[in-house]
């Protein structure tokens, strides 16, 4: 075997210019893929984490049907019992309860429709980023009652500021009219327009009084240590909630079910990306196919001699295949190194996509993006290049099978 490796290695450098160009083509493709995939995975991570931290947490317990209808009557009637179940699941780091009601909110001269959310200030701060998003005023304290946090765009629309009063009008759990006067304690900004334009947070206890919730909530939100825990949490929480023996009205939903839009748009982005990469690599493959072909055809006479002095076709093919594979691996390794370095640079410094903030905020992404170099992004990128290049290398090698020593030696 070692003689074959040696032969392959020397053969590669017989025409160094050609080999270098071929390797460069592979380096280019690998580098591009490693970088692009790292960039995509990085943006997915940001997207998911932002959304999970602002909105859904990792896994929630809700009444069946609440996700689609957000009906104030579809409640988790006894959140305390759910909390007991949660405390037995070690993967769940923190949890909290929320209640929501769509309400008409008026300032002295404006009225808007708003999603009012009741939160438990202390526990909420551990689950979501809300506390950090408060830009003016203060976050809610545990003992607050008629205080509220207002989204920045909503505050602008309502023309209100810290200390101003809002009147909220909605429908309680029992169908009665629910009304409350709230004092603005803080103004938050998440960067996600829809959320900042459309939401008000108030203390859960006061919310339950105003909306006649009788101790019920709409969502019990849990957060695990990382996204990897979600499956396990969902399973255990599901078993626990079923074991609580209420009428089977409760469901356990993970963030993917709560935000199907995000999951699908990631899929869409990934699939369209992969299609592009495969097309690109096929173009590269045809670009280098000629090198592989030529490396073999210009040496027909040589092969004839080798075969005449007793080299089997199998061994010859192995040696030639080794040649192409070596070129491929050199290219891919250099590609991973250079792609990794480029990615690493931007991972530290970030890429400023100027002028696209409008677009990015739609996905909850900041204007400066950070690619995320990972085993996955490197191996997927390099893997695609490897598979397609190796397939390309096989075709010319197979041609050798038909060579006969005498004819080969007389070939020009």
């Amino acid at each position, binding site marked *: 075997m070692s003689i074959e490796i040696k032969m392959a290695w020397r053969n590669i450098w017989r025409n160094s*210019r*050609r080999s270098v*160009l*071929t390797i*460069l*083509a592979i380096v*280019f*493709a690998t580098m*591009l893929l490693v970088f692009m995939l790292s960039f995509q995975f990085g943006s997915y991570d940001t997207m998911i984490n932002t959304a999970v931290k602002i909105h859904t947490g990792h896994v929630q317990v809700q009444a069946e049907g609440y996700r*689609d*209808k*957000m*009906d104030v*009557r579809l409640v988790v009637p006894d959140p305390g019992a759910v909390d007991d179940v949660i405390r037995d699941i070690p993967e769940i780091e923190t949890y909290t309860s929320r209640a929501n009601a*769509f309400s*008409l909110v*008026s300032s002295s*001269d*404006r*009225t*808007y*429709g*708003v999603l009012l959310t009741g939160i438990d200030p202390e526990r909420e701060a551990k689950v979501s980023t809300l506390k950090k998003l408060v830009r003016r005023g203060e976050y809610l304290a545990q003992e607050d009652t008629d205080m509220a946090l207002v989204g920045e765009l909503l505050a602008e*629309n309502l023309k209100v500021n810290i200390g101003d009063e809002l009147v909220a009008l*909605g*429908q309680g759990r029992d169908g009665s009219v629910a009304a409350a006067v709230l004092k603005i304690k803080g103004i938050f900004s998440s960067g996600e327009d829809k959320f900042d334009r*459309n939401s008000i947070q108030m203390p859960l206890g006061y919310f339950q009084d105003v909306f006649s919730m009788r101790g019920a909530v709409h969502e019990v939100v849990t957060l695990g240590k990382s996204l990897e825990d979600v499956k396990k949490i969902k399973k255990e929480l599901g078993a626990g909630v079923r074991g609580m023996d209420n009428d089977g009205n409760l469901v356990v939903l993970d963030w993917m079910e709560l935000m*199907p*839009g*995000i*999951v*699908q*748009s*990631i*899929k*869409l982005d990934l699939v369209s990306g992969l299609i*592009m990469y495969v*097309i*690109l690599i*096929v*173009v*590269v493959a*045809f*670009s*280098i*196919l*000629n*090198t592989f*072909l*030529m490396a073999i055809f*210009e040496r027909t006479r040589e092969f004839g001699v080798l075969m005449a002095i007793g080299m089997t076709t199998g061994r010859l093919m192995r040696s030639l295949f080794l040649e192409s594979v070596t070129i491929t691996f050199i290219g891919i390794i250099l590609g991973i190194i250079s792609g990794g370095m480029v990615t690493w640079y931007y991972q530290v410094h970030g890429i400023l996509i100027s*002028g*696209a903030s*409008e*677009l990015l905020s*739609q*996905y909850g992404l900041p204007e400066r993006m950070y690619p995320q170099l990972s085993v996955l992004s490197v191996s997927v990128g390099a893997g695609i290049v490897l598979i397609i290049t190796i397939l390309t290398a096989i075709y010319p090698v197979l041609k050798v099978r038909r060579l006969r020593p005498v004819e080969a030696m007389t070939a020009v």
Partner: protein
Amino acid sequence: MYLQLGWRNIWRNPRRTIVIMTAVIIGVWAMIFLGALMRGISEQMVRNGITTLTGHIQVHHAGFREDPIIENSIDKPEVVKAALSRILPPDTRWTTRVRVDAIANNARHSGGVTLVGINPEREARISFIGQAVTEGAYLKADDKYGIIIGKALADKFDTKLGRKLVLMSQDTKGGIASRAFRITGIFRAEMEATEKQFVFVTIASAQKMLKLGDGISEASILLADYKDADRIADSLKGVLSSASYDVQTWRELLPFVTAVLKMYDWFIYLWFLVIFIAMGFGIVNTILMAVFERIREFGLLKALGMKPWWIVKEVLTESFFLLILGMVAGNVLGFMSVFALAGTGIDLSALSEGLEFAGMSRIIYPVIVVKDIVAANLVVLVLGLLVSAYPAVKAARFTPVKAMAHT
């Protein structure tokens, strides 16, 4: 003679020529086809945006953009109407609307919607709603209590045709106006968000509910050719003073779509470049091989008195044929794939919620943009010849004696 020589030379080794041509063909095809798909996505987005109550140009009260509330309505619509009928070309369609945020309630549910008061007849010729009603009937001009809502909203509210729906909003006096409507029609739209957001009543009943008098929120204009939007918007600005009116084109009204358009522009050309680099390596390598195996030949030509520049030209001619053949086939393939999909489109309904999230339609139809085709072909031809200059110059540099002695 160059042409003949070049043409014959590329067919001396047909396999090699075909391989590299395949690279060019796939490359050009990928440029054209994926470019057309991206254009299709963005064009569809623009079209959706424009028919979803935007139009090409809108006129609002000057304060509306900053603060879209009922007080910022146009209280003298006759001024706007007069200006429109004077300035707009005769084949332009336009309408006036009342548009306001409202809360919809029925016995069991409540939620935020955008209440749109329309002139049924004029509206139908401009926006999607004219053809979108799938159950019940479209509004009639004298319909005082009829309301059309989206399918998604009807599902969310557990309601159906003939049921009551109460709308509440702030009126011009700062009070809360409310009015009960009966659902007379249910519409479907490209986006679920549209179905959830908009409810339609006649403009007269909206004005009455909001104590708006004759006031309107906006005039929306659909031009025969959207490219005229800037020009016509400018002439409208000349008549409607900017102190009381705000004239905007769809680019300003749909910032998200405009941003997507810009990004795609940038992205398509980047894609062209990346694909070119991928095949560039192959082009250089192939021509290089073709040159090096003919060292003796070039030496002989030079010995016979051929100038170096002629050799460069000869090699470039070969590369030109390779590129042109690949481009022609690539273009043909690209156009064929676009036309094959022109009827059915690519159905991505399986990912509908992701599409919704990205503001895309469920079915994508590729669209050929001449500018892109020209750009793709130019990139391949110009850059292709440019990289071929390297082997060509190499060939021209061989000294006759050395080259002829080469084995």
